[in-house]
Structure formats: structure tokens, C-alpha cells
């Protein structure tokens, strides 16, 4: 039984592993790539905070994915996650910009179409709006952050060596915050599709109820942490050195800005605060951490006068917004067909 459960969860765990291997570089790449922090230290901090973020704050974004399509069998969830993973792999091989968040949304829509469930267009439009908002918000944050950092640098008369120490500490704190936000926001991509068919039951530990969803998220968080530890070093060195070319202070602004965006799109507390203040709430949706980083870097490019800003990259990203979900839904549809008719697994419970 346990082996069967683990087999069906494997596609989600694989997605988690690849997320850890790739996206950890967005939060700790700068610190590790610039040798300000040892990889092992970064991987431990990243892994711990990713798991905490996933277990504590992962429910929000996952709930939105649930509203898009509630996949009601374990083999259906396995196929959807697998199709999303294949989409990411195929598009990466084809050198097309791709995000797991967009692949999973496309895959869920593919499942809706196959199972005959209606796709809530209101939810789709909210999700697409957040993809659009994600780099814009990151750019806005980085513009403000850059202006503040520049002002501090020009007026503080801080010694270069001391500034360096502060930046190093800042990168560790920002990295921890970024890891927490990444776990909270992106766990939905990894385990969100399994929530409705979770094979676990709630456990009470020392008076604390550990729900089946939290157990799923813990497992997903562990998979991400394993991805960070086993495979992210090279990505961190590459991506980190590219981002780092901006300067350590700018890199810190980029990490904080993109982490804030991930946090905003994952925090239920912040959403409740917005509602109580009468401000339209921000939808909790998994967004791409890489696109948030691109937005933040572009923001700094703009505030520096727009020179050397490669606007073509925005065009490429927007192509991904359309192409990824379409490709993912087609692959899912085909995969579900095979799963049901070749491997004889029930991939959905028909609508009433």
C-alpha cells in the first residue's frame, strides 16, 4: 500500500525535486555564487525554511489551484503532476521559457477537459492576472528598494568592509525569507493536485493536529529540500554569478523584491489583513520565482535609465504564459487517456 502511495506521489515529488534544484538559485544563488556563503550552509537554511514555508503557509495558493480543478483520484493527480513535469522538461529542452506554476495550471485545465468538469474562468483570469502582475510587482519593489539602497549607500558613510558584512548577513536573512516564501508559494505546484485525493489521515502530535494536507506538504517540502541539497549547487554558481554581476547590494534588492512577491501571493494572513482594511485582496496563486527575479532585475535596469535592458525577455516570458498551459493541457489530456485506457487506472470520479 505504502509503495503504491509513494509511486503515485512520485510525479509530485519529482516536481518538488526539480523545483529545489532550479529555484533555490533564485534565493541563494547570489550568496553562494559570490562565495559569500558556503553551499552546505545555504542548502541547510534553504531546505529548513522551504519546508517551514510549505507546511505553515502552503495552503493558500494550493486552495486556489483546488478551485481551478479538484482532482479527485490519486492516479489522476499523479498523471497531472507527471504531465506538468514532462511539459517543463520538453519546453526546457526546446529552450522556451517555462514555469512549473504555468505548467501545473495548464495540466489541471487539461484534467478538467478530460474529466468533463467545467473550468472556472473567473479563477483562470485571476491566475493569469497574477502571472502578469508577478514581474511587474517585483519590478516595482526593486525600484523602491534600489532607490532606498542607493540613498543609504550615498549618505551612510559606511565602511566598505562593514557594508560587505551587512550585505552578507542581509543575503542570508533574505535567502531564508525567500526560501520560506518559495516553499509557501510553490508547494501548491508540487503537492496541490494531490490535496483532494490525499492518502494520509490527520495525526495529533503533542496536542497539535497535523492535517493530511500538511503531511503532503511536508513530504513535498522534503522533496524540494533534497533537490536543493543534491542538485542546486551548479545552478546557484551559474545563476548566482549572473545576478551577482549587478553588484552585491543590487543582488540583495533583487532577492528581497522577488521574495516579497512570492510571499504576497502565498500569505493568507496578508490577504486577511487586506480584506479587513477594505483593500481588494491579492489572490493566492503559485507564481514563478524566476519571473519574479527577471522582473526585479528589469526594474533596476529601468531605474538606472533603461540602458542595457533586454525588453525582448519580457516578450519571451509572455509567450510562455500562453504556450506553457496549452502544451501542458494537451500533454495531460493524452497522458490521462493512456493512464485510463492502457494502464486501467481511474483518473477521475465523474461529475454528478
Amino acid at each position: 500500500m505504502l509503495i503504491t502511495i509513494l509511486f503515485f506521489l512520485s510525479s509530485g515529488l519529482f516536481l518538488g525535486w526539480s523545483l529545489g534544484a532550479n529555484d533555490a538559485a533564485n534565493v541563494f544563488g547570489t550568496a553562494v555564487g559570490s562565495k559569500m556563503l558556503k553551499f552546505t550552509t545555504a542548502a541547510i537554511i534553504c531546505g529548513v525554511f522551504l519546508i517551514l514555508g510549505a507546511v505553515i503557509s502552503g495552503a493558500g495558493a494550493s486552495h486556489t489551484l483546488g478551485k481551478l480543478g479538484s482532482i479527485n483520484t490519486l492516479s489522476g493527480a499523479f498523471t497531472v503532476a507527471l504531465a506538468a513535469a514532462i511539459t517543463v522538461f520538453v519546453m526546457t529542452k526546446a529552450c522556451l521559457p517555462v514555469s512549473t506554476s504555468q505548467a501545473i495550471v495548464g495540466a489541471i485545465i487539461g484534467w478538467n477537459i478530460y474529466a468533463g468538469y467545467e473550468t472556472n474562468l473567473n479563477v483562470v483570469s485571476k491566475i493569469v492576472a497574477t502571472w502578469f502582475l508577478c514581474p511587474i510587482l517585483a519590478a516595482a519593489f526593486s525600484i523602491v528598494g534600489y532607490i532606498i539602497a542607493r540613498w543609504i549607500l550615498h549618505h551612510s558613510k559606511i565602511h566598505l568592509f562593514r557594508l560587505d558584512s551587512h550585505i552578507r548577513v542581509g543575503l542570508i536573512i533574505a535567502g531564508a525569507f525567500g526560501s520560506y516564501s518559495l516553499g509557501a508559494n510553490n508547494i501548491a505546484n508540487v503537492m496541490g493536485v494531490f490535496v483532494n485525493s490525499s492518502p494520509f489521515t490527520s495525526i495529533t502530535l503533542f496536542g497539535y493536529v497535523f492535517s493530511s494536507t500538511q503531511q503532503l506538504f511536508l513530504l513535498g517540502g522534503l522533496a524540494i529540500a533534497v533537490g536543493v541539497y543534491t542538485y542546486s549547487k551548479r545552478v546557484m554558481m551559474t545563476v548566482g554569478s549572473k545576478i551577482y554581476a549587478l553588484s552585491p547590494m543590487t543582488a540583495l534588492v533583487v532577492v528581497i523584491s522577488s521574495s516579497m512577491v512570492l510571499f504576497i501571493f502565498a500569505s493568507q494572513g496578508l490577504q486577511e489583513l487586506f480584506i479587513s482594511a477594505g483593500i481588494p485582496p491579492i489572490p493566492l496563486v503559485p507564481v514563478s520565482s524566476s519571473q519574479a527575479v527577471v522582473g526585479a532585475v528589469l526594474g533596476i535596469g529601468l531605474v538606472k535609465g533603461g540602458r542595457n535592458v533586454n525588453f525582448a525577455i519580457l516578450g519571451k516570458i509572455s509567450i510562455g504564459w500562453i504556450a506553457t498551459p496549452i502544451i501542458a493541457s494537451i500533454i495531460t489530456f493524452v497522458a490521462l487517456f493512456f493512464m485510463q485506457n492502457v494502464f486501467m487506472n481511474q483518473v477521475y470520479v465523474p461529475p454528478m
Partner: protein
Amino acid sequence: MINLFGKTKQLELDVKNYLCIVQKTGLIFNEAINEYIECEYDDFDKRVLDINELETKADTIKRNIKNKLYKNMLIPDARGDVWELIELLDRLIGVTEKVMENFSFEHPYIPEFIKRHFIKLAENSQKATDEVVNAVSAYLTNFTMVTDFINKIMFFEHEIDKIEDLLKKTIFSSDELKTLSHRIQLRYFTEQMALVSDFAERIAEKLSILVIKREI
């Protein structure tokens, strides 16, 4: 983390001490040349010993800085730049020491009519060295001021170039100097003294690039 801040503070102190030595070198150089011109050779020789001692002290601090920068992984981003600056400052100390040693070894005779030019060269070299120290300190603490100090270094370097040219012309056009060898020796010392400000200029040029890198 506390350890990191402690090491950073120690590194700050080492660089500060190093800059103090560079400044002292400039001051000693100026005083020593004045004493030489005034034929106070004993005092001059003491100055040479002083500068040798300072150079040894500078080497020890330099080694400490290198260890802290590279062994303890301090300031990974800017350590190459800081180290390059320290190396250039070391060469500035080295050149100053060499010029004084050459005066001590060769004992060139400085005729009365060009003494004031040599004094002026030493004075401007000291000012250029002072501004180098100010510029490097500003690079570390208040980089918006670096350009002002660079301009001053360039100004003194230019002044020295003018004095150097004038001195060379005077040396080779004067009837008071009887032998070609004496003229050549004086020209050599003129060029040697101008080397101090040439190194100051090299540091200024390096700083003008580094200051752009410090902008975020």
C-alpha cells in the same frame, strides 16, 4: 556572525594603519629631501633608516591584510580591488624608499640654482601622497568624495610634471654644470622624484574605476 564582524573590524584597523604608514612615508620624504638640500646629511640618513623601518612595518601589515582578505573570505566581491590598491600603495612606499636610498648611495651634488625646484618636487610629492591616502580612505568610507581627491592628485602630478620639465631644461641649458655626467645624474634624480607622483596618478586612475563599481 560575531566572529565575522570582529574580523571585519580588525581588517578595517589594519588598512587604517597601512594608510597611516603611506602618509608618514610622504611626510618623511619631504622632510628628508629638504634636509639633503640643506646639506644636513646625518639627519637625512636617519630619515632613510626611518623609511626602511616603515617599509618593513608596512610589509607585515600587508601580509595580515592578505590573510584576512583571502583566508577568512572577507569581502569576496571587493577583495580583489582592495588588494590591488594595497599593492599599488606598497609600490608607492617602495618608490619613495628607493629614491631616498639612491640619494643616500650616490650623494648627488645639487647646485644652488636648482635647489628650490627639488624642494618643490618633494613638497608636491608629499601633497600627492596625502591626497592618495585621502582618496583611498574615501573609497572605503565615503566614496562620493573620491573624485574630489582624484582631481587633487591629478593637479599635483601635473605640477610635478611641469617642474620636472623645467628642471631638465635648466639642467641641460645651464653653464654652471660643467660635466655631462653630472647633468645626466641630476636628470636621473629629477625623474626618480617624479616617479612618486606617477605612482600616485596610477592609484588615482585605478580609484576612478573602482568608484564606479561601488555605485550600485
